[in-house]
């Protein structure tokens, strides 16, 4: 039951990542920044999918809401960066609480479909509310404070936000609330008859996941200096689910590995063929059919077969 030495490894990993701008070219700095953003997004989704056992297919909604909120606040309303970030998270959380309130009444596939429906509602608003969101063409030309306007300083800014998010999510997942989520995932009836209000716990998980997705989205908006409706489209929700699956949903850090794997694969494969999606599709079929616990599952499989990462409780 003891959390294993995950903390040291995570700090070591963050340290290595921090070295990227020192040793790598601009290209790798950009790649790593994108990975950090999507890793945070995937971590937030895993709260729902991995911990709470609720398959959301509309998580991109909150990613997009956070992103649009942030670029609109900083650019249209010229709000300070930190306040914009905070407000973006808050707005995403409120949206998630409102949407979640309806969605958590449903289970399993119905839940997945309803979250998908809401994310498409967000997408449709993003493409049609042109005066505010920039419509089909997206919101372009977001302004950034000088401090983070060059790629390297932005990289460290993203790393800071990512690390904060990672630590907070880790604390949440190992909290008593985290245990309650796992209990619900494992056996909802039993959890109910321990005296838990399952719906409220699922709603709280949904809201937290939405808030962190919003934070990741805000980072993306700043990174791209704009936000595009594709970020709310259902394929974006599909992509982040793929990251969670690739990395391993029964592990806290898995989604980070998944996000990194997906980006690195894409970069590598794009050098050989323009048909990256077909390669990804085949890889996914392999993962689903052969290694459903993802990269983290493979890694822990090397260490110890059937170790406690299966419980999802205390794996790193």
């Amino acid at each position, binding site marked *: 039951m003891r959390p294993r030495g995950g903390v040291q490894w995570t700090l070591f990993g963050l340290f290595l990542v921090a070295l990227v701008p020192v040793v790598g070219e601009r290209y790798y700095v950009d790649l790593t920044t994108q990975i950090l953003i999507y890793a945070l997004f995937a971590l937030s989704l895993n709260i729902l999918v991995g911990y709470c056992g609720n398959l959301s297919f509309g998580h991109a909604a909150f990613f997009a809401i956070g992103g649009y909120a942030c670029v609109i606040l900083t650019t249209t309303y010229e709000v300070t960066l930190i306040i914009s970030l905070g407000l973006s998270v808050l707005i995403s959380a409120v949206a998630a609480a409102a949407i979640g309130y309806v969605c958590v009444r449903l289970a399993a596939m119905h839940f997945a479909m309803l979250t998908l429906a809401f994310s498409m509602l967000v997408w449709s608003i993003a493409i049609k509310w042109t005066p505010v969101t920039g419509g089909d063409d997206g919101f372009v030309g977001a302004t950034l404070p000088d401090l983070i306007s060059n790629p390297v300083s932005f990289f460290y800014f993203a790393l800071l936000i990512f690390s904060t998010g990672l630590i907070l999510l880790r604390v949440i997942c190992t909290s008593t609330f985290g245990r309650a989520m796992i209990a619900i995932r494992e056996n909802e009836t039993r959890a109910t008859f321990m005296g838990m209000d399952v719906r409220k716990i699922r709603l709280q998980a949904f809201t937290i996941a939405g808030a962190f997705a919003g934070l990741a989205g805000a980072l993306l908006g700043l990174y791209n200096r704009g936000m595009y409706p594709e970020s709310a489209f259902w394929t974006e929700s599909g992509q982040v689910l793929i990251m969670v699956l690739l990395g391993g949903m029964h592990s806290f850090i898995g989604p980070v590995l998944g996000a990194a794997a997906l980006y690195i694969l894409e970069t590598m494969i794009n050098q050989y063929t323009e048909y990256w999606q077909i390669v990804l599709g085949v890889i996914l079929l392999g993962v689903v059919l052969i290694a*459903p616990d993802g990269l983290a599952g493979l890694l822990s499989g090397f260490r110890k077969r059937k170790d406690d990462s299966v419980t999802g409780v205390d794996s790193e």
Partner: protein
Amino acid sequence: MFIQLMNSLALGMNLFIIAVGLTLIFGVLRVINFAHGSFFMIGAYVLYSVVKRTGDTALGFWGGIVVAMLVLGFIAWLVERFLLRRLYDKEHLLQLVFTFALVLIVGDLVKIIWGPLQHSISYPPGFGGATDLGISRYPTYMLFLILSGPVIAVSLWLILEKTRWGRIIRAARLDRQMLSALGVNVKAVYSAVFVAGAMLAGLGGALAAPRLAVEPGMDALIIIDCFIVVIVGGLGSLWGSFFGAIILGVATIFGTLIFGEWEIVIVYILMVAVLLWRPWGLLGRIEEDRH
């Protein structure tokens, strides 16, 4: 007004044919098939290839539709028999990502085989003109689409209600273990349902081809329309998707008329409203599908 109503029905009935395959597959296999839109797209492309070779002949068009359905039936059989079958008792996430992987693969394959450009198909001979309906003249092909919906719906309903296969399929929706205990080859039932669902998607895609552009990316939008139809109508319900399709057709056409480009937002708001009122859709059954 009359024209708009007819257009709503034509769109709705076309959507119904596609969506009913999705709902049928979900009803029995409990799998949400994201690749359903891809099947739809393949149907349209296969018809395009056949018509290109045969020229604009009646045989080419109608034969092409049959070919499209057969191709999809075969693809679906392969997919179900060798891949999907291993995932029935696995987590929903795996099934979902599996069908999503198919979407990615088919999306690129279509580009590789047919190229990234847009293609179009003309109406089949004899259906290019308009028919006088007394009130107004209306394009014959669209009229054919409107009529095809109820025909398919009633045929499916008859098959489900009156035949032995139909009884087995309905039983499979309720309790697959029991069915297996009774000596029914459940695997074959699942296979057949998946194949039938994919063939319906192919039929829908082929029938839709003359009214749309055949191009990569047509899968991602149609699948969302299908989801709206089955969510509003109720997952797994035949008549639910029939009425869901009509509602979506009407909402799309009249939404555009009244709200202009905000139509798409209205459609989603309508869907959310239905779900707030009836979380399991109009004709969906309340069920605990958690396992």
